[in-house]
Structure formats: C-alpha cells, structure tokens
C-alpha cells in the first residue's frame, strides 16, 4: 500500500510538472511600436469591441488586442470552414500586438478561446 501511494504520488507530481510547460498559441508582442494601420480590438465585460473589423486581403496585418479586464482573453480567427487560421496568446489585463498572417479576401469569424460566446468578424478585402 505504501509503495502504491508513493507511485501514485510521484505520478501526480510528474503530471503537474509536465503540465506546467509550454503553450501552443502564437506569441504576442507587447504593444510598443505599433503599425498605425493596425486593427484595435478591446475586450471588456466578456465582449469584444468592435465586433466587426476590416483587414487588408493577402497581406499580413497587426491586431492590437487590449484586454481591459482581469479575465483572460485572446483572439482566435477561423476560416469559413471552421479551421483556425490564427490563435493569439491568451492575456489578462494587458495590451498586446498580434501578428496575423495574410488572409485571402473573405469573412473570418473570431472568438475568445476561453469564452466562445465572445464573437466578432474580420473582413479581409
């Protein structure tokens, strides 16, 4: 029983340590030297503002994401088929700049990964 307890305890510790490593989202830069044409999206009260933004088609662009509350948020952009085309780093009470890859002309819904009810649309044109 003692050995089982020890093994289970070590397993749990290993799981905790393994779990504390790395993230998969695109890293965001602190909002410093920002493209003046960058899109600005705010997050407050579990809502995006604005919810409709326009970006240039076929060219990378920046989104200045300002999370104005103490709840973690990010921006995840998907294509019409639901495939993720951009997954921004999750931030709390922080303003960051996302480097979004070029999007073909069209409409792309975006959400917060933690709060899928937070919705918006990027129109590339």
């Amino acid at each position, binding site marked *: *029983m003692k050995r*089982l*307890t020890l093994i*289970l*305890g070590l*397993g*749990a*510790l290993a*799981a*905790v*340590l*393994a*779990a*504390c*490593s*790395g*993230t*998969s*989202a695109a890293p965001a830069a602190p909002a410093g030297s920002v493209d003046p044409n960058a899109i600005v999206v705010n997050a407050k009260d*579990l809502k995006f503002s604005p919810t409709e933004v326009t970006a240039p088609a076929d060219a990378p662009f920046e989104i200045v994401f300002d999370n104005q*509350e*103490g*709840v*973690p948020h*990010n921006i995840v952009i998907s294509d019409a088929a639901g495939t993720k085309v951009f997954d921004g*780093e*999750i931030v709390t009470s922080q303003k960051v700049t996302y480097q979004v890859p070029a999007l073909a002309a069209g409409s792309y819904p975006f959400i917060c*990964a*933690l*709060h899928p*009810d937070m919705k918006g649309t990027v129109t590339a044109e």
Partner: protein
Amino acid sequence: MFARPTTLRVSDVVIRAGIVGLALATGYIHSTLGGLLFTLNAIGYVVAAIAMIVPLALAVRFRWVIRLGLMGYAATTILGWAIQGPYYSTAYLAKGIEVALIVLVAIDFARLDGNPVTVVRRELASFVALISSRRQAGAAA
C-alpha cells in the same frame, strides 16, 4: 445530525487537507476565468471541498459517494478541457492540480473505503435489503 468524532490517523488528515487544498486551488483558478461555465465549475469544487470535511452524519455516511463524485467531477473537467481547450499555461496548471486531486482522492478512498467495486456492491445490497424490509413491513401492516 452531526457525526460522532472519528478516529482519523494523522496521515488521513494530511491527505484530506491535501484534497481540500487542491480542490480549492483549482476552484480558485476557475473562478478567475470569468463566464458562467467556469464560475459553476469553481462553485462545484468549493462544494466538494466542503463536503469532504463537513462533520454531518449524512456526509460522513456517504463520504464514499462524495469521493467518487469528486473524482468523476475532476475527470470530467479534464476531459472537457482536453476536447475543447484552450491549451495554455494556467489551464495546464489547473489540469495538473486536478490529476493530483484525483490521485489523492483515490488514495483516500482506498485507505478508508477499500475496493470501490466492493463498496458499491455492499451499498446496493443494503439498499435492496432496506427496500425489501419496507415492503414486508407494508405487507404485514
């Protein structure tokens, strides 16, 4: 209403304190995430932590159900996250805590209740016996 004092060993108390601490830790993390689902999840962990230590006779009698429920609750939370994400540092920390929580509750269960299959069988048998005795009493009246 309140249970009679039990003879818990020091190791039992340490494990129980660990369970309560881990449940409150993951509950706190979920409470900081905002939104209804995370808030309800946090409340669930707080209720489970209280249920693990409350000295009410009913809670003590059915602590095995609370243990199984807490393990299932944590496992469901991990499964839901594994399916939906998001995969970032705080989430990994919360899931690590939940894995450790499941392990500790399993140890607590094994030490105080024994084999879960045996416990469920025994409880089902006593439930069936209770129903039959009530039926017999009703027929005799």
